[in-house]
């Protein structure tokens, strides 16, 4: 039997993590039971042609017993704006679990995430327990403080950079990364965030010969590998579908 569902899901609860960020808990038992860290769900938010398409979101936690899953999202446009107005009992259609997910290997993993890229790493961090997990997180400013709290429960070490220095070290995650790698013996890196960050993380990881997986984002229609909206060039010249071949790739597969 197949592991993908298009299930009518109900909002269990929604909480504000910051001005612009919300955590939404959905009852979607099929997906919740089958989902692995790094996979995502594709949500049809309203039973309307406005907005028409589904919206993809990483899952930050899944509780197979309760049949629920959580996503953390930033309000950026029409779809997320409608999501922000939802309350317990409202319905969405949840397509998932989609994508391949992370390969949970390594005894001393480092997670490097920027902005909303921290979302898939959160579920991964939980799955990697009880191995000692270090997370290096980058954000715009102290308003992304909530991530620290969320990772505190699942990570041994938390390192923070912000663009404006209002929290942790001022600068980018990749500024702090060489230092961290020099001081520790990480045997696996997982990263998700803006493309330039991923490219820099992958480059540094390759120099140090630490295996590295990156999770990509792209504009998606089907989420099922059919429409080719989301393909990217692989380093071998072949195309990769972010939705099914990814969103998680070995860094060398997609970043030169």
């Amino acid at each position, binding site marked *: *039997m*197949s*592991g*993908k*569902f*298009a*299930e009518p899901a109900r909002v269990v609860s929604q909480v504000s993590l910051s001005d612009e960020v919300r955590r939404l808990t959905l009852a979607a038992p*099929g997906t919740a039971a089958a989902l692995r860290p790094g996979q995502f769900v594709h949500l*049809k938010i309203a039973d309307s*042609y*406005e*907005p*028409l*398409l*589904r919206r993809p979101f990483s899952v930050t936690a899944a509780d197979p017993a309760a049949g629920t899953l959580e996503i953390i999202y930033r309000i950026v446009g029409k779809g997320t704006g409608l999501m922000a107005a939802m309350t317990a009992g409202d319905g969405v*259609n949840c*397509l998932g679990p989609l994508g391949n997910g992370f390969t949970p290997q390594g005894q001393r993993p480092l997670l490097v995430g920027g902005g909303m890229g921290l979302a898939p790493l959160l579920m991964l961090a939980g799955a990697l327990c009880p191995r000692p997990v270090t997370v290096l997180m980058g954000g715009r400013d102290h308003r992304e403080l909530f991530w620290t709290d969320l990772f505190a429960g699942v990570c041994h070490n938390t390192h923070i950079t912000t663009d404006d220095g209002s929290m942790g070290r001022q600068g980018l995650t990749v500024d702090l990364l060489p230092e961290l790698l020099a001081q520790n013996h990480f045997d696996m890196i997982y990263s998700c965030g803006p493309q330039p960050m991923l490219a820099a993380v992958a480059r540094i990881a390759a120099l140090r010969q630490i295996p590295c997986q990156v999770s990509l984002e792209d*504009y*998606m*229609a*089907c*989420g*099922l*590998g*059919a*429409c*080719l*909206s*989301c*393909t990217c*060039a692989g380093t071998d010249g072949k*195309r990769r579908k972010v939705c*099914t071949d990814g969103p998680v790739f070995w860094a060398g597969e997609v970043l030169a």
Partner: protein
Amino acid sequence: MQCRWEAKKSLAVNIAGIAMKTPVMVASGTFGFGLEFEDFVDLSQVGAVVVKGTTLLPRAGNSGRRIAETPAGMLNCIGLENPGVEEFLTAILPELSRRDVPVIVNISGNTVEEYGELAACLEGSGVAGLEVNISCPNVKQGGIAFGTCPDSAAAVVRMVKANSTLPVIAKLSPNVTDIVLMAKAVEGAGADAISLINTLLGMAIDIHSWKPVLGNTVGGLSGPAVKPVALRMVWQVARAVAVPVIGMGGIMTGEDAVEFLLAGAAAVSVGTANFIDPTAPVSVAAGIQTYLEQRRLNHVNDIVGQLILA
């Protein structure tokens, strides 16, 4: 989870010699090679699987952003990314052929000759038919030109017919002044059926960056937004030609499909709908079946072309 539903006999149709269990096909480029949707749809309950536009050589497609949502629609500029006909025949078709569903290959060429070669490659492969994409607006060479001039459209169809014993479906572009002229040209050239509409050429601009939203500047509009235009063209064509017409453009529900059938389409295709509801080909067929049952009609053909004009 696969949607369990079985089509009644009342839905079975035969389009240009291709026997289908339901009149609901899937539109090229929106359903991959069919296998991608098996988690949700039993392919044996789909009228026909029209696979992604296939070219002689593999194509990487357009770079940059490929889709944009628009009011009740979407733009795409995939740019015919596909593995090429060889890979299709060796790596995909053998698996797809094991399913009990007619497979129709949507073909696209840069020259009239390429269309002929493609048709020849697919001869004897076991596919049920060819859909000739003379209308894809994304490819700078070929594509748009063939589909907007009756003579070149006819030349392509003639070439495909000359190289194939399979039923040939000509797929028309809506970006023309006179769709009936195009339809008659391809019918005259021997097309066994006509499908329409392909996407309407559109554009979106990012007012923050001042750049086009799409990597290819322009793209093809599909989805509910285009339905009124699609329906008008299907109606115009169906009353002007003798070959069967396959209607598409914005079909999301059984009710939408019934509109196209009444307008004269002998079958329909669902495209963009697959992205919103992966069970669309089956749910649309089920919707038609319900419609027929509620009106105690015996067969879908009882409504095809039954539009009543004042």
